[in-house]
């Protein structure tokens, strides 16, 4: 059996998505899915043992109109609605945002650090790919 490597944000697709009872007992609430809870191992990066049943979500916040959503961090939630509310409470308390996106972390596919050499180094000596030879007007922000 080959062992798949897991990186931050990767969660085995058939992992349990049951929800712990908020008062602390391991039961499942309202998820509509029953997963195999036994396959979680130390491979499950980013998911602490006591919360193994609430999936991890990545949070993207747009700080104001016209800007892109930026990755702010991650959190646990039972479903998308709760993830958005948690993101509101965790990441927008100091007026950081006007819009929130959340996506379950397991739907994010990450590049493999082992590929770094072939992925990124070829760009090192190709300075002509940088648009640094253009003069930008001062009015142009956020480039």
């Amino acid at each position: 059996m080959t062992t798949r490597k897991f990186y931050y944000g990767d969660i085995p697709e058939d992992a349990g998505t049951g929800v712990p009872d908020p008062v602390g007992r391991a039961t499942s609430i309202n998820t509509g899915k029953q997963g195999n809870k036994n396959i979680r191992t130390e491979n499950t990066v980013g998911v602490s043992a006591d919360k193994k049943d609430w999936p991890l979500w990545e949070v993207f916040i747009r700080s104001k109109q016209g800007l892109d959503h930026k990755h702010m961090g991650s959190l646990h939630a039972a479903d998308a609605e709760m993830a958005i509310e948690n993101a509101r409470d965790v990441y927008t308390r100091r007026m950081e945002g006007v819009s929130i996106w959340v996506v379950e972390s397991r739907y994010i596919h990450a590049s493999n650090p082992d590929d770094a050499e072939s992925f990124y180094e070829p760009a090192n000596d190709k300075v002509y790919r940088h648009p640094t030879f253009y003069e930008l007007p001062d009015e142009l922000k956020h480039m």
Partner: protein
Amino acid sequence: MQGKFNKLKDHLLTYVLHLADNALIIGHRDSEWCGHGPVLEQDIAITNISLDHIGQARNFYQYAALLKGNGATEDSLAYLRYERDFRNCLLAEQPNGDWAQTILRQFFFSTYQWLLYSELSHSRDEQIAAISNKALKEVTYHLRWSSEWVIRLGDGTEESHTRMLNAISELWPYTGELFIPADYESAAHQEGIGPDIKLLKGLWENKVREVFDEAGLPVPPSGYSQSGGKQGLHSEYMGYILAELQYLQRTYPQNQW
């Protein structure tokens, strides 16, 4: 004539203190979850709600201090009054219990507060209208958050459903008091400052029914209700709350940081 005016002024002061005390006491109860929430994200959520309530309380206490005069401040009103002087409803002071009980208390209270502040934002008293209007946005979120949790727990597992049923039987007797007007509430209504809270009861029950239906929870019949908090006759818990809340000012008077 002068006497009547003073009486009205007293009623207004008590009414504002009632609004402030409600917010402070439920805010204090919610704050007890800080660092103890079931998960980090919900710990932050309930603490945010707590801070919203304490912010509302501050606004109302500042206004009450202005009405009271004689050197009263928001701090003296919160920290130096005695149990019998507090005019909060009994629901606000009920213990956190488990997460289900805290959620249900918040849902009952936020539904009430949402209806009340919606009315108060048209109050003839501009200060009350402005504070309520600002707070209404926060309360709208509290109501949404707590409604979703009621549904999640009611419609969840057998365990969570049972805990909600226990919370309902624990807290239901304290909901009736919200809609039994105290003399200062009747006076506020007559002056166009506050709503007729008896009329909010039907709206409150409709909202509770709507959410309970979705959560698969039964709505108990309205029956006997505990009351007295709004007149200063509190449950056994209130003394403990104030002992903790007021400890610092009682032990080290005038202390500041």
